[in-house]
């Protein structure tokens, strides 16, 4: 039915006792996510909201509660360290929601992810999270706009993903899994990674990719799609009207002075890969439904 997360996911929340962590953990539990533990160093032994055991380390969450996914809500200065702690604890999936993580920290984290013994996939940082509708929601997206189904969605932007998902749901098309990979220049999971997983997932029939200006993540994904993906893919790129040399909210959304990473180059790559293009954000679901009947 999905990739990466499902009803068997056992989640540990890093930063569970903070304001953000508390609010979103409540939302996720309400949605049906199995939150087995929380981690706040120094608060080990407490019970969060009378429900979830709080521990001092991620390793304990793995050992004592069988956690197999982690979500991170800790402040930006400590986020990279939290990711590294989860990697050292061999958690297979780490989702970092935190916005504003220093790029240098992420460069170090990415190196660690390359180690041959790394068992972790990182999603984010600066992302809304991941959801397999009806089974497991990890992150800050509103649950009710989703519906179980067979379309995979991957995106660099939060609210723009909600737009696309809501369009799909209203038109009667559910989603297998929706992943927000985040808007930062260095992240854990790329568009290509997500598309490869959707392509290999027997329960995903079609894919939506939402990109932004900056970097070459979408161009790389299109090269992969052209070569390997037979499933219908639709795409949208935000930032066609953005001026060069200014970062548009997301640190990763910048068109360099030399013109690399423009919306035009990305649309061209999609065209070349046979991706059905939405020229405006209201038509993302329509772009998919032109080539996919469900």
């Amino acid at each position, binding site marked *: 039915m999905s990739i990466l997360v499902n009803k068997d996911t056992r989640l540990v929340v890093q930063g569970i006792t903070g304001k953000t962590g508390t609010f979103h953990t409540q939302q996720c539990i309400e949605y049906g996510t199995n939150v087995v533990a929380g981690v706040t160093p120094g608060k080990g032994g407490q019970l969060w909201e009378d429900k979830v055991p709080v521990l001092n380390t991620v390793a304990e969450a793995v050992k004592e509660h069988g956690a197999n996914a982690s979500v991170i809500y800790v402040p930006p200065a400590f986020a990279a360290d939290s990711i590294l702690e989860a990697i050292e604890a061999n958690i297979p999936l780490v989702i970092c929601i935190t916005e504003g*993580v220093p790029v240098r920290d992420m460069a170090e984290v990415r190196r660690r992810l390359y180690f041959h013994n790394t068992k972790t996939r990182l999603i984010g940082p600066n992302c809304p999270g991941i959801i397999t509708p009806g089974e497991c929601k990890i992150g800050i997206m509103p649950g009710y706009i989703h519906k179980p189904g067979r379309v995979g969605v991957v995106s660099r932007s939060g*609210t723009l993903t909600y737009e696309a998902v809501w369009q799909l749901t209203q038109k009667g098309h559910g989603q297998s899994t929706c992943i927000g990979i985040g808007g930062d220049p260095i992240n854990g999971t790329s568009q290509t990674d997500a598309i490869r997983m959707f392509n290999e997932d027997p329960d995903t029939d079609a894919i939506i990719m939402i990109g932004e200006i900056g970097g070459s993540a979408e161009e790389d994904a299109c090269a992969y799609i052209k070569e390997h993906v037979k499933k219908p893919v639709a795409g949208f790129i*935000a930032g066609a009207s953005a001026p060069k040399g200014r970062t548009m909210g997301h640190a990763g959304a910048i068109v360099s002075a030399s013109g690399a990473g423009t919306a035009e180059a990305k649309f061209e790559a999609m065209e070349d890969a046979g991706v059905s293009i939405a020229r405006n954000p209201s038509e993302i679901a329509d772009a998919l439904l032109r080539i996919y009947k469900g």
Partner: protein
Amino acid sequence: MNIHEYQAKRLLQEYGVPVPRGYAATNSREVETAISHLGDDDMIVVKAQIHAGGRGKGTFTDGYKGGVKVVKGRAAAQDAANHMLDNTLVTAQTGPEGRKVQTLYLTEGCDIEHEYYLAIVLDRETAQSVIIASTEGGMDIEEVAEKTPEKLIRVPVSPTMGLRHHQCRQVAFALGFKGDQVKQFARILTGVYKMFWEKNAMLVEINPLVTDKNGNLSALDAKVSFDANAIFQHPDIQQLRDLNEEDPKEIEASKHNLAYIALDGNIACMVNGAGLAMATMDIIQSFGGSPANFLDVGGGANEDQVTAAFKIILSDPNVKGILVNIFGGIMKCDVIARGIVAAAKNVDITVPLVVRLEGTNVEAGKKILRESGVALTPADSLVQAAEIIVEQVKNAGPQA
């Protein structure tokens, strides 16, 4: 965050990189002092300090040519400084309105033998820093990359291994340095890398790095930008921020934790989420309108922030209409609606306002707007919203 050339050179100097002796000046008294430190028989370089490139080829709005002048003697330096200080410099990178020059940097001249290019940037694709060097210094490096890519030396540096001696030697030999110059260059590159890493820089660029007639290396011009996410770790760098170089609306927005970027159009947007904000600008443009700004109010904006956002938007005299586009997720539509109503009571909204709400508590939000009596046009979809605001601004155009 960007800093001025003179600040970048001071930092480089702290990291052992030789730079020509120089003095910054913000008024005529400081100019005089600076000049008195420099020799009357020597070449003196007078450089306008603005956060934009292309200074040498720039023109001041009063017609005076060149934001970088190499002159002989104190009188000529004084004359150049008089022309530049508090004058407005227009370069290829400033836009037609130019930038007011509020600081000058006066340095000793240099007998240049050859100009090189040296930079360290963080490469997002490989997630490591990359040394970029070239024998073709002093010119636009992007042009070098395009026309003669073989003249660009690229050496990646692993964030976990750091810069190694052999890498310094590799770049030095590739640039054609010999003997003592190899050692000089290795010291410079080591210093530049250390500064890049320790200060969380995104870019350190020395262009040109020069050799003089005696074979000595020094940094003649420098550009440094820092990772805004890491500035909190570096109070010394934070102090180098020059608010004169930033749009006052952007400064005000950052005080309220709003991501705002001023653009030159006339339709203001207020959106939650950076991607959706960009997409909203795009759709305005696709209907023939022109966005006045990028504004992301974020995921958890409150009434005060929405009010502040309206004030900032309306302080731009070019704004002839406003499009609010909210997809309520965590942020509920009724909260945004209350924010809009409160803002309308606080701020005099004199231009057309189109509001599109979708998502969590959308009906409650629409009801609040309907019953508030605030003059606005509700829209059910983003396409419709964009169409309406572009049309309203067009119609209001001649009278406005």
